[in-house]
């Protein structure tokens, strides 16, 4: 039930949305397509679903070449950013839609809808209309609707993009658990690296219509293939030609070997985490991530001169990633 995409290209007029994209998503996995907006991730998802026709390339679902098949024959469940709820139908009729199209027996539809509404925690909402639901509830209804027809793959296009931060966090955790229960091959599109890392087992970074890198969240963070991935999957500083994560810089109040001088511009409290903004003696600006206890121990104040020493540094040269400690 895996998804294979081979050399897919797609242009919209002069705009290159996808350029020779190849991708392999193992059966049963939960994969994130991560990238900036306009990077081609939604287009790729729509090509896989059959909602967009690629200019060239192949889409193989479950070992079958479905490039020429219309969306309705592909057996994919698609979830849209803005829910795409059928507004004139109740929650029950929304979820039952695909089953009714397939002319399943009434009793079967009824029990399946009930089971799905339980799965997405919407029992008791069957007779409501989408307008009477919150955004999070609507999106869960849309998920149940897509799952009802037992799709081979689930494709979610920025599923939490239209929700507020709290609901988004809740639904992320919920989606992970749901995937553990249902275990259908799932791809979801997001521009939020934290969301991708939290939910997905595998991340594919798309930018400017091509794949920058694919791998586990940890691999992307620790072994980024290039500058783009390095700076997209987490905060980063650039100091003397090297890329350094804010938590890989030590701050000291006294001079020490291999340390250089910097001045603290600003201290930003983010709860347990503290972000310190500094200006290096060579004029470049950078951030350091500390914890609240570390800050208290060092007794740092804005305007203070400190000594900094970088730990793990990353350099990209001739298409290679070089990491030094």
């Amino acid at each position, binding site marked *: 039930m895996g998804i294979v995409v081979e050399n897919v290209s797609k242009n919209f007029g002069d705009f290159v949305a996808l350029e020779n994209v190849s991708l392999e998503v193992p059966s049963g996995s939960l994969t994130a397509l991560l990238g900036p907006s306009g990077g081609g991730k939604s287009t790729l998802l729509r090509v896989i*679903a*059959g*909602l967009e026709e690629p200019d060239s390339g192949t889409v193989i679902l479950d070992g079958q070449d479905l490039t020429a098949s*219309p*969306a*309705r024959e*592909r057996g*994919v*469940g*698609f979830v*849209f950013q*803005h829910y*795409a*709820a*059928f*507004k*004139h139908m109740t929650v029950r009729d929304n979820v039952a*839609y*695909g089953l009714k*199209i*397939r002319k399943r027996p009434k009793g079967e539809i009824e029990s399946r809808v009930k089971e799905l509404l339980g799965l997405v925690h919407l029992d008791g909402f069957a007779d409501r209309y989408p307008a009477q639901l919150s955004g999070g509830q609507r999106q869960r209804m*849309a998920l149940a*609707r*897509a799952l*009802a*027809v037992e799709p081979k793959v689930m494709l979610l296009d920025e599923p939490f993009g239209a929700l507020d931060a709290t609901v988004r966090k809740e639904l992320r955790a919920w989606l992970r658990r749901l995937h553990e229960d249902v275990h259908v091959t799932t791809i979801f599109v997001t521009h939020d690296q934290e969301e991708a890392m939290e939910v997905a087992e595998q991340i594919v970074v798309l930018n400017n219509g091509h794949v920058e890198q694919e791998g586990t969240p940890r691999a992307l963070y620790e072994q980024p293939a290039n500058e783009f991935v390095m700076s997209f999957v987490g905060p980063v500083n650039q100091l003397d030609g090297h890329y350094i994560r804010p938590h890989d810089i030590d701050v000291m109040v006294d001079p020490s070997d291999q340390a250089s001088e910097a001045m603290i511009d600003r201290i930003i409290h983010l709860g347990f985490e503290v972000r310190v903004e500094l200006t290096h003696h060579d004029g470049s600006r950078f951030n350091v991530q500390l914890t609240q206890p570390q800050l208290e121990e060092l007794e740092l104040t804005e305007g203070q001169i400190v000594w900094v020493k970088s730990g793990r540094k990353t350099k990209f040269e001739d298409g290679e990633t070089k990491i030094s400690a």
Partner: protein
Amino acid sequence: MSSNVGAIPRIGAKPKRRRARRRLNAPRVIGLTYLGLLLAAPVAMIMYRTFEDGITPVIDSLTTAEAQHALWLTFLMVIIAVPLNTIFGVVMALLLVRKRWPGKWVMNALIDLPFAVSPVIVGLALILAYGNNSSIGGWLVDHGIEVIFTPVGMVLATIFVSLPFVVREVIPVLKEIGTEQEEASETLGANSWQTFWKVTLPAIRWGVAYGVVLTMARALGEFGAVSVVSGKLSGQTETLTLRVDERFEHFDMIGAYSASMVLAVMALATLLAMNIFKKEDS
């Protein structure tokens, strides 16, 4: 004593409330006066004049063979023009909003032609195109179909002048609902026909309904274009709207008023029916 104490704030509150109401009233009064002078008063006058001498003359003038024929012909215009323009309108709106094709902008502009051109010109154009001396008209006459000065031409004229309403009402609704619901339907296994009936049509139903009401009103009330192609033969090519004018010119006021009243009642009934459906729907 205690009742007095209670009364003080009430007295103080009253003028405030009255002032608020008066502020709201000014635009309402202007609006109602405007509507009253321009709409309600003339319609009420027709009602009053119609029934001035009781109901008998009204019934008499509406039951003549010519009046009955006019009523039937009006019904015929509506029953042919409205469904045809509704189907055409929905299909054309879908083509204009959802599809890309060459010549789309030309079609988009052409659809508004009946709004832009005076109905009298529409009638003359139809005579030029379908008259017995034209090539199309001549060919049709050879095959036993006469268009000009017959109900066939009147139906054509009615269709022509009422063509844009459904298209123009449906296009903005189609744009507003977007394509996501239709795409969702497709991924759930529905073909285009199923998607249209189960998703698109229910979503645009109020746009279609408004379009139908406007088309119907125009079909009931069209005078200019229909008049030119009809030849105005009482009892043969005369709709109720044409009859109002014809009776008026023959100084048969009761006849003119009665026909007007029937038209007004039909138009009001259409509007009322739609509003009732809409209320039930929500």
